[in-house]
């Protein structure tokens, strides 16, 4: 079982590198959606010994939202704004890859300080989820388009969600609901905002939004 888990974690890490390396917005959306699926798999695999209905339902909802609904919303936004690529990001793609490597190292370093009390987990899980969070933050920082930033935000939420659903699942359900709800609402509102921005500015480069 552990091999599968490790594999899923490795896939998660790889998906992050792909996210960092992709300029096409559609691909980004797809990667974020795939990440959500991988996360759900990890969550299920790590709690396989004590699977309960609540977790399963949660995972199903997650997949539905994160992998289907939200990407659809973002796709529509992207199409509506008419932007396909992130052409001149703040940090170039090869440099982004290197930075991704650095972030991965940082994640491992950090997880060195924190011992995971959950026994069933892959030992790579903590760094992987931290790495996902960092990648999300990195994308927000390194990209210019508002849509890309929203995707970065989603990747970050993915990481947090991964962490939560695997390590904090024994909390009453409010936590999961909140994750889903808030991600949902936040992304929705951001989407609406992006529509307005594109309407006002004819482009969605946020670096033009300077005071």
């Amino acid at each position, binding site marked *: 079982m552990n091999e599968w888990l490790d594999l899923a974690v490795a896939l998660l890490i790889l998906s992050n590198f792909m996210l960092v390396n992709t300029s096409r917005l559609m691909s980004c959306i797809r990667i974020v959606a795939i990440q959500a699926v991988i996360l759900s798999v990890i969550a299920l695999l790590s709690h396989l010994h004590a699977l309960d209905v609540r977790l399963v339902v949660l995972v199903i909802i997650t997949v539905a939202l994160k992998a289907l609904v939200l990407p659809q919303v973002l796709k529509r936004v992207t199409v509506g704004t008419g932007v396909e690529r992130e052409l001149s990001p703040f940090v170039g793609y090869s440099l982004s890859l290197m930075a991704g490597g650095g972030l991965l190292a940082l994640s491992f370093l950090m997880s060195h300080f924190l011992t995971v009390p959950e026994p069933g987990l892959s030992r790579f899980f903590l760094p992987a989820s931290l790495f996902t969070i960092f990648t999300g933050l990195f994308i*927000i*920082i390194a990209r*210019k388009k508002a849509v890309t930033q929203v995707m970065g935000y989603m990747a970050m939420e993915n990481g947090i969600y991964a962490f939560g659903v695997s390590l904090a699942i024994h909390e009453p359900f409010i936590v999961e609901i909140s994750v889903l709800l808030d991600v949902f609402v936040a992304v929705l509102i951001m989407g609406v905002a992006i529509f307005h921005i594109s309407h006002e500015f004819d482009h969605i480069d946020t*670096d033009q*939004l300077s005071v």
Partner: protein
Amino acid sequence: MILFLAALIVLLTGAFVTACAGRRLWANTAGPLFSVAGSVLTVVGSLMTYEDGPWEWALNQGGSAILSIHFSMDPLSAFFCTVTAVITGIAAIYGGGYLKEYADEKNLGMAWAFFLILSASMLAVETAWDGIFFLVAWEIMSLSSFFLVIFESEKPEVLKAGWVYLVATHFATAFLMVMFMILGSAGSFSFGSAAVPPALKSVVFILALVGFGTKAGFSPFHVWLPEAHPAAPSHVSAVMSAVMVKAGIYGILRILTFTGEPLLWWGWTLVILGAVTGIGGVLFALAQKDLKRLLAYSTVENIGIIALGLGLGIVGMATTHPVMAVLGVSGCLMHVLNHAVFKSLLFFGAGSVLHATGSKNMENLGGLMKRMEKTGSFFMVGAAAICALPPLNGFIGEFLIYLGSFKAFTVHYGTQGSLCGILTISTLALIGGLAAACFTRAGGVVFLGEPRSSEAEKAHESNAFMTGSMAILTALCLALGLAGPFTIRLIQPAVQVLTGRSHAMDTVIFEGGDYLMRISVAGLCFLILVLALRLIRNRFLSGRSVEEAGTWDCGYTAPDARMQYTASSFSDPVVTMFQAAVRSKKQVDRPVGLFPESGAIQTRTDDVVLTRLISPMFVLAAGVSDRLHRMKKGYNQIYILYIVLALFTLLFWTFYQEYTR
């Protein structure tokens, strides 16, 4: 006690009433009335404290409140309250006349409200018996005076001056805050339980020196004084210069009662500070062209003299030389009183001149004695008093300080006292000479000779309120000068608060009273002699020809007002001597060619501390700040990067601490 509290209530009620009155005309009558009523009550109340002994009164002590309104009046407070009340009362009368012409354009009700609040807060500062209450009263005092300073706020320079004042006083208060927090280490801020940890004794002293010294105007913290005092309306300048800066002196004295036995170097610090302040103040006064600015610098000078006296007293205390201690502190307090009287007189005079001619620039004035005889005469008396000339009051305080320094030359108290005495004597003598130069210049250029401008020519005497209040002060100058033996007994209890009561002290006070009595006799003799000589001359001249003619002036046929010595040329030799310190700027347009059209020379003396030290610092800070402003580009990406960096830094810091522990 009742009277004092009643006075505060009267003043605050007055503030409320006049604030409500706003622009209505009667505000300008109500203000002075309330102020005078408050002053009378305070004076009577304070003098009764001398009789009945100290009292204490607290409104909400020990409750849940942070601020406990807690008054106490001992002789030291009573002394300062008396001075404050007398001067504010007289200033209010003057102000009633002075503000009349502003009635159309200004909200006089608010001006009076702030004046009354200022009076009340000064009294509160001088009687506060709780650290936090003291600070609150202190800041209200600063704030209300700030609003008075910016009375003519439509002038940019007035607003600037007000700002300099506000900032200076705020930074000073920061020191006081820390000081009172240390005093309150025991838990309660009540002065009754104020205890200074021995290790922090000197820290407290330094904090007090900076904090209170800024208000008092010790160099180099005096920078606000020559800005704010000229900007304010003259009755306010008088109150600020004459009594508000003394609140700083009061503060230092009060703190000294908590710190226990003072250390020798405190005294030295005060003496040296006093010397620097005194000489610096008078030098800059000498170089000014603006009459009120001159007076403001002269306040700095007199604060220097007060500090000299106090420093002498502390050296006396620290070397257990009771005579020196008592004389030094008495001189300090005596000069506090005297300076309050003559400085307000001088500011009133300057105010009347401003009122009559619209100018404070001495180079535009002259010949006012003929046009404003009363103001001129009163100003001359004030000028003589501030030069410490007998038989006027200025002499008394300086005499006590001189005497203290001479008494320091007693061999068995060691060389420290003697050195201190030498420094004090030389400084005081130099200050005396410079002050004489400064005030003959002020009086002579402004009031004597021929008018230097058409405004000065058209000047007119001020109204009765203004001249009346000046007359009262002039009379006080003379009375205090002759009543030395009486006043030294009056301040004796206040001195005892600091020096403690001892046999030596009684002797000193007794002897001092005796000397002062002789001075009074000599002063009376002097007056009688002058009067007698005058009678003789009149008698002789009565039968002879008394003619009027032009000034002879070595036979000049057509003397002109422009040929007179100007203020700048009068002070030029002295200023040039001290150029290294004063840094007066001269701008000379020399006449060129064979038949030159015209030439000009202008001098200008800015405050050295302000222009050389503080302004550059502010410019530097603004530059750094501007550069940092540019860091803010407005990219969301960068902002989020800040967040991430902050996160990592804090995480790293937290765990690094863990690691190293």
